[in-house]
Structures are given as C-alpha cells and as structure tokens.
C-alpha cells in the first residue's frame, strides 16, 4: 500500500507576444521554441503513456496568455512557417554533415523531431490546447489556471481590484476554453499575499500553490510542515506548498540533473556556430545570429571544450535520474510516513519550459519517472490536489505567509533598482481603471469597447515577465517597450473615454494588435 503522494506540477506560461504589424518578430520565437521543444515532447510523452495504459496524474498550468497564443490563427500560421524552415535546415544539415557520422545522426534526429512537431501540431488542428484538453478529459491531466497575464499579485495588493481582474478574467477564459471552471490556480511566480485567497474564493477556485515558506511561516505553525495542504483561515481555500528537496534535486547545480555532462548543451547552437552565409536564411532576417534549436554538443564538462551529443547515453542518464528521483521520494515518503503517522503529500512544481527547452532530456526523464512510479514501486502514488483532498479532507487552518518562488523568496526579483519605476505607473493605471468602472457601470457601443480594451492594456502591462526581464538587467528593451506601450495605450483610452472622444480607428487598430481575451468584461475590475 502506498505511504504517500507525489504531486508533479508543470507551470506552463509565456507572456503574450503577438505582433501582427511585423512580418517577423523575434520574441514570437519564445512560443515557437516552446512548442517544438517543450509542448510537443510533453504531449508525445502523454500520448505514449495513455497508449501503453500507464496511469498517471500531472498538474499543469496553462496560463491564459499561453492558451491565447496557442489558439491564435496568426501565430499558428507563423509557427508552421517557422517549423518548415527548421525542417529545411535539418535536411541541409543532413547533407552537410555526411562525412561526420556523429553530427549526421544528430541532424537526422532533429529532422525527425521537427517533423513530429509539425505533424503533432497539425494533428491537433493547429491548436495544442486541444491536446492538453484531451488528457484532462481522460483524467490524467489536471489543468489549472493562472493570473490572466501573469501579473505578480503581492505587488498589486495596493490595488486589489487588479488582482480580482487578473483572477476573474483568467477563470472566465478557462471556462470558455475547457467547458468547465478551473479548480486550482498557480499564482503567478507563486506570489501569495495574505487576503488574496478571498479573491480566489469569490472566483470559485479551491486551491493554489505557494513556496515552502508560504506555509512553513504561516500562522499558526503548520503541524505537518509542507507535507499536507492547509486551509486558509476565513476562506477555506486550500494552500499547498512546494517541497524544496525535490525541487533541488532537479535544479541544483551539484546534484541537479540538467547539468549532467551527458546531457545536451543548451548554449551551443548552429545559429552561432556555423558559417554566416550558410546559416543566414535561418537566423533573424536582419542578420542577427540567434538560436535555431539545432544543438550538436553535450555539456561534456565545466570548460569550453564540448564533445558531440550522444542521444542514447543521454537517454540512459535520464532513466538513471528518474530512478534516482523516485528512490529519493520513496525514502522521503517512508521517513515522513513514520514521522507524521500520516501519508505525506510531496509537491514538486517546475516551470514547464524547463522540460525540453532548457533541459532537453526533461520530457524523457518525466516519462521514465511516471513509468517507474507506475510499475516499479508501490510506496508513492501520483495525485492531484483535488484527488488528495477527496481522500484527506481534514486539514489544518492556517494563514499562509507572504511569499514567492522568486529570487530570495519574496518580491525582490520584481522590485529593485532596475524595475521599480514601473509600479508608480501600473498602480496609477489600476486606480484609473477602478475609477472608470465606477463612472461607467453600464455602457454600450464604442465606449464599452474602449473600456474593455483599457482593461486588456492594463492586464498586458502587468505581466510579471516584463519586471523579471528588467530585473535580470540584460536585453531589457523589449520589456521596457511592452510596459510603456500598454500603459500609454491605457492612458490614452482613459483620457479619451472621460473626454468622450474615443477615436474609433485607433481603437480598432489596438484591438487588432492587442486582441487577447475577446470576451473580456471590464466590470470585473472592481
């Protein structure tokens, strides 16, 4: 009989990047890369598991911005163009490397992967959300929602109306896509501020995740630490905390898996390595070298010297790592079972884009792990939070502590010298949005359109991704531009609405550019 539960969570999110006004837009590649390297490999792994009758449970966030991009027709067209170019490049590579068998085999591997990516994309009607929905309907995948545009809630506490809008727009969007309400939410950046559970409850959400210290530092002290959910005081919304030990096993520099010398090296890409004229058609049209996704080397060691990648050896390593991860969870679960006299719940959340994009072998590792858990042991049971709560309804009542999973565990990543200037403007826009909702409780026609667009612009400006990129301090131009563009559009809408001077042509133009959440209702911002 099992002695504990493991809840694997993949947080899938990308900021909304869609520029119909430009034929080629570099940042749209974030989505294309994630489709080819992360989402399709995950879907393929899920398909194999289902075909082999392997039972499994995975919890996955699909952020509303990610869903919107995956469902967008323009981006789908562009992805096909992108993947076709990659297939063409992989074919050329097969020719070029004819006298280098180790690279020749790798180019065949990429050609195969890119072809599978295209086929899978087409098979699900150019919308991979259909695939994830299928696994949810099969009971294998628990899809949770996120902030509408991944706004960072703790720094929005001063304007709770915006937190509410982030949550309610997300829930409504989820419902329109999946035909039912979401049960859980991944708070963007795992950012929790006491009191926000009230907003989650209003929206019908039953659980959310925090980082370890969110629960460990909660009041009163949690009896079972991070190994059981707690109910938020006053609302009863369940709060589930991440287990740092299992996180470290994957992330950490020393014992972390992705740094293994047999794994593929992320930073060596033919977009940078090959002769300029040859690679030019596959990098940015302006001639700037970028990653193509074809990478021929393994990590090899700490130095700059890299050896060719050996897929079979990497695959064996991924299997070993999956075994190691499971072994450690078994030990952890047995130990905790004795200590707590209760079946512990181990929560292991990861950025979905870690799997495949950064850690090329990640999806393989995950598939091995799921198979091993299903067949090689009986101490751990994979679960989702609703399933766990069904079996273990009685839990302690605690007020979780403010926390995030960002650098140093609080808000510093999004609030430091390089990005703190945005909050004055973001908060002002929130305040103005609230004012507009009060002033125009029920309007129609162009004013209503303008109000809805104002909320879209505000939400888009709030994405934590801009603050994050500004916080890292490199290549910040795009993040600055997005923050400013959306706020400037918002400010103009605010002035125009109040002056009853909405310029319809301009409004149509920004509706076309920032077309996210077609069914948005501005009145949620209150």
């Amino acid at each position: 009989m099992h002695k504990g539960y493991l809840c694997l969570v993949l947080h899938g999110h990308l900021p909304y990047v869609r520029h119909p006004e430009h034929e080629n837009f570099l940042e749209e590649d974030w989505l294309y890369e994630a489709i080819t390297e992360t989402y399709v490999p995950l879907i393929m792994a899920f398909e194999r598991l289902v075909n082999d009758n392997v039972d499994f449970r995975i919890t996955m966030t699909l952020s509303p911005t990610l869903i919107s991009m995956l469902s967008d027709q323009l981006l789908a067209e562009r992805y096909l163009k992108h993947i076709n170019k990659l297939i063409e490049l992989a074919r050329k590579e097969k020719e070029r490397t004819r006298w280098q068998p180790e690279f020749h085999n790798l180019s065949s591997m990429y050609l195969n992967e890119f072809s599978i990516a295209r086929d899978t994309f087409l098979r699900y009607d150019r919308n991979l959300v259909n695939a994830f929905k299928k696994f949810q309907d099969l009971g294998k995948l628990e899809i949770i929602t996120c902030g509408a545009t991944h706004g960072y809630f703790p720094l929005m506490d001063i304007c709770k109306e915006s937190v509410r809008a982030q949550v309610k727009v997300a829930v409504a969007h989820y419902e329109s896509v999946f035909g039912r309400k979401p049960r859980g939410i991944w708070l963007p950046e795992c950012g929790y501020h006491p009191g926000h559970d009230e907003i989650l409850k209003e929206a019908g959400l039953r659980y959310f995740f925090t980082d370890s210290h969110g629960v460990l530092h909660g009041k009163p002290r949690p009896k079972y630490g991070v190994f059981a959910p707690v109910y938020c005081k006053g609302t009863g919304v369940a709060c589930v905390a991440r287990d740092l030990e299992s996180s470290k096993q994957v992330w950490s520099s020393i014992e972390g898996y992705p740094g293994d010398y047999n794994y593929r090296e992320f930073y060596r890409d033919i977009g940078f390595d090959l002769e300029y004229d040859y690679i030019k058609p596959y990098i940015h049209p302006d001639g700037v070298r970028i990653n193509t996704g074809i990478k021929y080397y393994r990590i090899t060691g700490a130095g700059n010297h890299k050896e060719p990648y050996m897929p079979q050896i990497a695959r064996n390593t991924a299997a070993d790592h999956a075994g190691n991860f499971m072994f450690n969870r078994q030990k952890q679960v047995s130990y905790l079972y004795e200590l707590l006299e209760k079946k512990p719940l181990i929560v292991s959340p990861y950025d979905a884009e870690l799997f495949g994009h950064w850690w090329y072998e990640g999806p393989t590792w995950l598939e091995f792990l799921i198979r091993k858990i299903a067949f090689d042991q009986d101490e751990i049971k994979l679960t989702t939070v609703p399933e766990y709560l069904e079996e273990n309804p009685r839990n302690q009542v605690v007020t979780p502590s403010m926390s995030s999973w960002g650098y140093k565990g609080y808000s510093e990543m999004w609030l430091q010298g390089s990005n703190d200037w945005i909050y004055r403007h973001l908060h002002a826009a929130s305040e103005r949005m609230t004012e507009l909702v009060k002033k125009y409780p029920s309007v129609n026609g162009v004013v209503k359109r303008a109000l809805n667009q104002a909320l879209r612009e505000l939400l888009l400006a709030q994405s934590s991704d801009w603050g994050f990129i500004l916080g890292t301090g490199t290549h910040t131009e795009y993040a600055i531009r997005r923050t400013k563009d959306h706020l400037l559009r918002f400010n103009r809408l605010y002035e125009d609405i109040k002056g009853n001077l909405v310029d319809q042509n301009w409004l149509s133009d920004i509706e076309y550019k920032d077309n996210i959440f077609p069914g948005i209702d501005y009145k949620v911002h209150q």
Partner: protein
Amino acid sequence: MVQLKRKKIEVKTKKVVKKVIKKKAFPGSKKLKVLNSLSSRLSPKKDVLREQEVAIGTAKFSHAKVMFAQDISKQELPSTYGWNKMALVVRDPWWLYTYWEVKESTWDKFKSELKDEFYKARRVLRVYDVSNIIFNGSNAHKFFDLEIREDAFNWYIDIGTPGKSWCVDFGLLLRDGRFITILRSNVVETPTDGPSWITDEEWMIPDEMFARLYGMGFGLGKSSPAGGVWRKGIISSPGIASMASPVKKQAPRSFWLEVNCELIVYGATEPDAKVTVQNKAIALRRDGTFTLRFALPDGKQVIPVKAVSKDNLEERVITPIVNRETK
C-alpha cells in the same frame, strides 16, 4: 524540546535619523549596478536555488536581444499624475518600498503657510510601527525618521524587524523639531522571517518533530529564506556539505579561436540527368546546376560525382579527391 530563540533587534529610541541606506535609482540611472550590488550585499540570504531558477527563467526569453529603431516608443510615460499619493509596498521581511507624488498646489500651500521655514526644513520619511493597532497618527509603537534628498520620489526602507505592520509619512522636519505630514501611506504588514510562534492547542506539535519537518521542507536547508537562527540551530542534514558550491557556470571565455572547414562541390549537367554524389542521388536545379556543401573533417575524401543521361545511354564520372590536414 528544542529551544526556539530568535534575535530581536528593536529600535527603542523614539527618534532616530537613519543614514541613507539605499537611494532609489531613477530609471536608467548609471548608479543602478552599484545599487544592485549594494542591495545584494545587504540582503541577508544567498539564494542558490533561486539563482539557478533565474538563469533558467532567462533562457526562456533567449532572444530579447535586438531592437528595431521604428519600434521604440517615441512617447514617454507621464512623470506625474497630478495627485497626492503615497504608496507603500513590502519587498521582503526586511525591506519596504515607497513612492509618492505631491501636487504642485499642495507644495504651494505648505510654502505659503511655512514661509521661510519651508526652505530650511528637511525632507523626511517617518516610518511608524503600527503592528496590531488601528493607526490614528499618534499611537504608533515607535517610529524612526529617514532623511531623504529633496528630489527623491521613492525610497527603499530597511526596517530590520520582520513580521510587523508599517505606515510611512512623507513630511517636513522643521528646525524646531516639529514634523509636518504631507502624505501618509497605506499600511502594510511584513511577513515573518521564520516559523510562527503561534501554535494552537488543537494542533499542538512537539517542537522536535516540527524542526525535523521544517528541515525537510527546505531540503538541504541552505538556500531558503527561512530564518537563519532557526536553521543554524536545528537542522543538520547529511547533505548539507554538498550545497556549498555555487551555480555551475561556464568558465569565463578569455581569448579564443575556432576554425572549421567546409567544402563546396558544385557543377552542372543536363537538367534532366540523374546525378549521384558518393553514390547518393542529389536534386538538380532547373538549369541543371547543383551545389553541395559538406563539413570537412581531417583526412581524405573521395567524392565521385556521376551523371547519367535521361535515356541511360551516357554516363560521366568526375572524382575530386580532397585531403584535409590540420596542424
């Protein structure tokens, strides 16, 4: 039972003018890097796990490198919104951040009321500890003042003691010691830096057991934001030594050189001919020309190129032989 002790540093004095700890950087300021490094030096914890996560998070946005001139917004965001406002937010258990804006007409009002005194007064942030009370302006447990630059409009405040509620006034400290409030912030509560001291009766749990749980919750216990004292005192996980090393980094590139060779084989024949190169069929362009490009490793390559006419009656073979030797 494990003793639970925690360092308590409290500001007892009623009025302490703290020296500037961290001056706010204006957007785009060159001081930024210095400030950031200062802030990381001041910050009490190193966070290896989350540093790694930042590196991986950055990889997600790997292409944010190029900016096109036409895309840069020509407009700027407003520098003021024409209102009186002071906002206070929590950065972490030890730091708050505040920004504010004062309307011109409000400044004018104080100027005309205070006359000369206005210009001699110091600009001050008064930081009130308002834990567990409804603050009415005069019932704070304690407060301290931070003198700030005249042109500042935001500030990071080092509050030192986690787990309390705070409110901040922006105002003028007159020469006679009077403090004039111009703006008052919202109230915020900072999180604690360790586990709660509240354990309710029904769920009482032996400290020793909780301590073990606590250690496990943080894995190897070295890079979490959990309270330092608590950690040092209690947790000794067998794996702790292995966490000592920082994130694995690429060795810094200094000077370097890389050389590779490729070989281009090209030619032409009748457009409808069948051509093989090293016995592998290739496609011709419409005009009968072809170009092949190979990565050229060291050693000898024999490259027979054979063309056969459409009717299979004629055949030509040309065989370049290429030697590459690298010294």
